[in-house]
């Protein structure tokens, strides 16, 4: 060994190549098959994409760094399943570019928080968590209610998502700003297009309680209310088993 190595030490290029080769193996063997082994991502025919408003909300979730405290990944462990609900499936984050599985639970897991609480609670909680949960250490996000949501470039966002493989239709891309607006203003004519394009089950509400404005709060709450609800595959068998 030392003799061979002494030779290698004398060649800078040889050493560089050796490092590259030796270091590339592990990642290749672990990552490449995730694209080729079929069962890696389960099938979910009912899986739907994020609406433009939800996507905008997701981007706010990223911007504010919620992932630093909240996981979105319920592990296959008894206590997690009993506390948070059925364990997360790979398919549930199929359209998540990037994924938000998280690595720290300073706050609870949010993978199935959609529908767990009311919009009003979410708004009150985001405005100041300590108003509703006195011991909370979560930051207050008061500015979300004041900031009008930027919607005009959402078409570009959907297009970029399509480029990385999310099946947005041309109609969805073309109508993205209107759909974002419509989803948070149920009484306008733009609301109808949302359920037409994204399905009847889509939440169309004044999420922040104020139907006259579409704010960042609307977007974030719309996103939170859809967590765990893009497909039923994870919950369906569990509910069946419980009965």
């Amino acid at each position, binding site marked *: 060994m030392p003799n061979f190595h002494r030779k290698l*030490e*004398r060649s*800078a290029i040889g*050493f*560089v190549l050796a*490092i*590259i080769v*030796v*270091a*590339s*193996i*592990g*990642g290749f*063997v*672990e*990552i490449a098959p*995730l*694209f080729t082994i079929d*069962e*890696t991502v389960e099938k979910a025919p009912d899986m739907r994409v994020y609406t433009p408003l939800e996507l905008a909300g997701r*981007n706010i979730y*990223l911007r*504010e*760094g919620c992932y*630093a405290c909240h996981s979105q*990944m319920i*592990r*296959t*462990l008894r*206590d997690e399943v009993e*506390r948070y609900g059925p*364990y997360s499936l*790979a398919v549930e*984050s199929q*359209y*998540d*570019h*990037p*994924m938000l*599985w998280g*690595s*720290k*639970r300073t706050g609870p897991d949010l993978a199935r928080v959609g529908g767990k609480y009311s919009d009003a609670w979410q708004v009150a909680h985001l405005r100041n*968590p300590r108003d509703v949960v006195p*011991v*909370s*250490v*979560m*930051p*207050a*996000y008061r*500015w979300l209610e004041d900031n009008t949501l930027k919607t005009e*470039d959402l078409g*570009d*966002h959907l*297009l*970029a*998502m399509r*480029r*990385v493989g999310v099946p947005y239709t041309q109609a969805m891309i073309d109508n993205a700003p209107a759909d974002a607006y419509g989803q948070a203003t149920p009484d306008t004519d733009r609301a109808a297009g949302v359920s037409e394009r994204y399905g009847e089950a889509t939440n169309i509400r004044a999420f922040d309680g104020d139907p006259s404005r579409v704010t960042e709060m609307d977007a974030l709450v719309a996103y939170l209310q859809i967590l765990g609800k893009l497909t039923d595959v994870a919950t369906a068998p569990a509910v069946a088993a419980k009965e």
Partner: protein
Amino acid sequence: MIAGLTKLERQLSLAVLTVLALCGLAFAAAGRNDPIGTHGFVILLSAVGLMFVVMAGYYAPEPDKERLSRYYDDPTKVGIILAMAWAVFGLFFGVWVAALLAWPDLTFDAAWSSFGRIRPVHTTSVIFGFGGNALIATSLHVLQRTTRARLPDQFSPWFVLLGYNLFCVLAVSGYFMGLTQSKEYAEPEWYADIWLVIVWVVYFLIYIRTLARRKEPHIYVANWYYMAFILVVAILHIVNNLAVPVSFGSAKSYSLFSGVQDAMTQWWYGHNAVAFFLTAGFLGMMYYYLPKRAGRPIFSYRLSIISFWGIVFMYMWAGSHHLHYTALPQWVQTLGMTFSVVLLVPSWASAGNALATLNGAWHKVRDDATLRFMMVAAVFYGLSTFEGSFMAIRAVNSLSHYTDWTVGHVHAGALGWVAMISFGSIYALVPWMWKRERMYSSRLVEVHFWLALSGTVVYVFAMWNSGIIQGLMWRTYNESGTLAYSFIDSLVAMHPYYIARTLGGLLFLLGAMVGCYNIWMTIRQPGTSLAAEGSEVDEPALATSTALQAGE
């Protein structure tokens, strides 16, 4: 400093800065309604500012040929100062972030200061700002000394050092504005990522060009590690940051991968950022400054070989231990766990190699806080790798994952290993670089050492406690067979530990500030030519062969 550059290098600098300024201008214009516009201005201002600096020295006389018979250390000096500045900045934010979890209203109601935004400010500032600058500064120093060759030119080291710091500034200022890809330790957006690739290629070229002209037939171990650091970080960075921007005028991008593939790529990256940034690079540092300071030969050359290739090969398999019990297929988790366990052997081999090198110099460890910094670093390196391999076992990880135990492990490595080895190396390096007999005050080095050690111990013990309590509370069942504690119960239980951690961090920060003062005073104190005690044999290795230098 500009006077040290040749005319040609000054012109090259201006040309490159002009291109950079134009890029900045383009972003500023294209991103008028987007935070990327702000970053355009940051780039523009940095470039123009540096142009003024270059212009100010532009007409200085050509540097004399003599310089080629000396090592080129100006970038190292600036790198040390930048490293210390980032350390204080990053540690300050660490303390702030820690305080927020004890007293969540310390954000002054501003968006930029909320936990989720300043947490990455902390991590990036300490890892990339402090750690990265320390690595660049020391690597350029070690590279020249162990090859007995001068850096190939005087422009590219500045490009790397300042370009790298521009990357860090873009990253950190971006988080304040909410710009993030959310991938841990790879948060900066697409344009900053691209910029880092360019900087990194030049960094690699410096290395390979210097090695090509080395006067030592064999490449020294420290350089193996520095090379692995540069090369593998490049691979990781490029693959994990693949993304499609929304538009040229938008800071936002969407990661190429999604879901489970994205998770695996991210933690393949994340874990190996630990391995090749926080470990390999700093092992390179250790392999030079520790034997130097101890005045002892490396304990075993053969052990160096085993640990180096073990680390390079096996770390790359271990990333999936961040995803145990998740939706990642179990076979990948198996591989991640088993390789993490084997990985302990080369890790301890390198820690052992370092400690055994001190045989015959333990009296120095006792008397010299600088060497003690390095010794303690090696111990914490051994400790955190043992802990890491332990936590990589699935059953253990089911308890530790998502909890403060991980954070405790991180900081055993980050404070105990990364920061301590850096401080030790910097204390060794500063007198050599500024041609001082010794540090301004060895008492203050001693003070720094004890502040750092006690801060680390308080931090790590607090997090072990809180993490294990948290993990146990989440999975404890009562007699009825149902969950005994709610999430909120666990949150309340963390409070005292979060306060303790903040105090530990404060001690550590104070230590770093003491270090800054000491370094500053060392630089300011009058120089001697070169002095005996512990100083480096800084032989102008190339005095005889300057001709070889000129062209490059």
